[in-house]
């Protein structure tokens, strides 16, 4: 059953272009130049109940804008969207009680007070039954291992601890849909791992729907069963994480470990040499010719070990993004 539906959703901003210098500042008082930025260009998307969807894309691709639209923070320029049957930007309390938004770069807790005070306020704002509140809070703080920090002012928590408190606050009212905007930004590897483990457990146990934006591939690989790649405000890919490689990478990475003193000098004939660390060599080989290359190598050389792998996901996506950035420049120039 689809819980989030977007049809032709678009958002454009009119942004003032300020030129450099005092004269330009004075001129700007009377005559202003604006540029239309199309942050989201007509997105169609359907998300089912219980899906954990990742939004991937370079900076400025439209990921956060889409989450802002879905959480009702901003109003679209055109198109429609419903989340659990609600139009987000109408900001009905009935809707606001059913979702939560966590922003990695924004603090929603009271800075100078212990997190437990913010939790208590959330209980009141969301009208959570006291017994249910105690139960949920205890469960969340235990899962996130922050019970001992409940009485510490938020300003004195580390970034990772604060994010755990933010997540606790966001989940107190048991939202059915959770929007996460870069929840692990700036966190160290251990803190990232803890948050990932918690999100995975919580999502599986409650079967809630989560949409996540992140630049950390490990977040996405660990959590999401579906990836939506967005660039230039449009959806470029919608599918599984491994499907990205099949679709966007035409290469495989071949690692060959030659037997003693058998390292050939003409490796380039097999493919692009990425790294040589005698007697090991790593090659980038066109996907179509991998079987031929393998049989040729095996026929001509003695090998200790051999492996054929997909290129790292980060590399494929980075390549894809750099192409989309070039297209963005072209599109901006023609608009």
């Amino acid at each position, binding site marked *: 059953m689809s819980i989030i539906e977007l049809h032709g959703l678009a958002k454009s901003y009119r942004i003032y272009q300020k030129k450099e210098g005092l004269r330009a500042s004075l001129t700007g008082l009377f005559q202003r130049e604006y540029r239309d930025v199309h942050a989201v260009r007509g997105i169609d998307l359907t998300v089912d109940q219980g899906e954990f969807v990742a939004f991937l894309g370079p900076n400025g691709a439209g990921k956060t804008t889409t989450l802002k639209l879905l959480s009702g923070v901003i*109003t679209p320029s055109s198109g429609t969207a419903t989340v659990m049957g609600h139009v987000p930007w109408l900001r009905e309390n009935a809707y*606001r009680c059913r979702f939560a938004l966590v*922003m990695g770069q924004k603090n929603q807790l009271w800075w100078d007070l212990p997190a437990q*005070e913010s939790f208590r306020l959330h209980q009141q704002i969301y009208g959570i039954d006291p017994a249910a509140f105690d139960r949920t809070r205890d469960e969340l703080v235990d899962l996130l291992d922050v019970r001992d920090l409940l009485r510490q002012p938020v300003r004195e928590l580390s970034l990772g601890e604060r994010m755990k408190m933010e997540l606790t606050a966001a989940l107190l009212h048991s939202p059915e849909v959770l929007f996460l905007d870069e929840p692990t930004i700036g966190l160290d590897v251990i803190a990232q791992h803890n948050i990932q483990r918690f999100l995975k457990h919580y999502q599986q146990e409650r079967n809630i729907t989560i949409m996540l934006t992140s630049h950390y591939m490990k977040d996405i690989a660990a959590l999401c069963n579906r990836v939506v790649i967005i660039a230039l405000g449009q959806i470029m890919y919608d599918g599984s994480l491994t499907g990205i490689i099949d679709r966007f990478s035409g290469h495989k990475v071949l690692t060959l470990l030659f037997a003693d003193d058998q390292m050939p000098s003409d490796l380039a004939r097999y493919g692009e040499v990425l790294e040589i660390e005698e007697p090991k060599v790593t090659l980038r080989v066109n996907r179509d010719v991998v079987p031929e290359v393998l049989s040729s190598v095996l026929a001509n050389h003695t090998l200790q070990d051999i492996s054929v792998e997909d290129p790292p996901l980060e590399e494929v996506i980075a390549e894809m993004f750099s192409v989309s950035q070039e297209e963005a420049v072209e599109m901006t120039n023609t608009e």
Partner: protein
Amino acid sequence: MLARATTWWTILRISLEERLVYRGDFAIGTLMRFLPIVTQIFLWLAVFDAASRGEIEGYEISGYGYSDMVAYYLLAMVVRAFSSMPDLALGIALSIRNGDIKKFMIQPIDLVGFLLLTRIAHKLVYYSVAIGPFALVFYLCRGYFSGWPDPDIMASFCLSLVLGFLLGFFMEAAIGMMGFWFLEVSSLLFVYMLFNFFFSGQMFPLDFLPAPWDTLFQLIPLQYLAFFPAAIFLGKVQGPELVNGLLIEAGWVVFFILVSRVALRRGMNRYSGYGG
């Protein structure tokens, strides 16, 4: 209704706790605000002395003797303690600019009501710190007053203080909401404060003003932020004039409630969700 009252109480309680975090700085700031009283008392003494050529006793300027003048100044200070809203408009505009306002847009909470409760908490902490110095100053200056006013005058004075608080709050909240359109409201606030300085009566009684300025102050709501309540206490406004004044003040409160509500609703619809 009970649930809503509990929510309000929780917001108020947490706001009070937050205010008390920096109680030392708050207490020093509050106490320092009493220093200008001494200079004002001496300033008006010098003014009356010069104007009356040394015959201060019985000398009046626009119906105010020296004692009335000091009493007026002290009362205006009390009224300002209710109606002034430090950092309210700038705080709203800043939260719009840096995106902090987003949390109010995604939670089932009324931003204006929330701000009002946090401001009440701010004032309650302020009064709890300032009540001692206020009592001391009024005790030391008791000679400038001709006794306590009648209970009905006192009740009207208290009502005008509450209305003054609400008017000050909703006027500044409306200015802060302009941040949805201009992002930065400090210049707008400067103009407001400039007019406030002259036309609220915080520096001198507004009945000092000659024509046509006396008409201007009657037409704008600023007099209710200092002059009007002080004039009630001193018995300068009585009878039908007092009732009319209170009704007009209440009317201005309702007007600015509507302005801030409409500004919030329209502003949210044009909000760009700044700050990531």
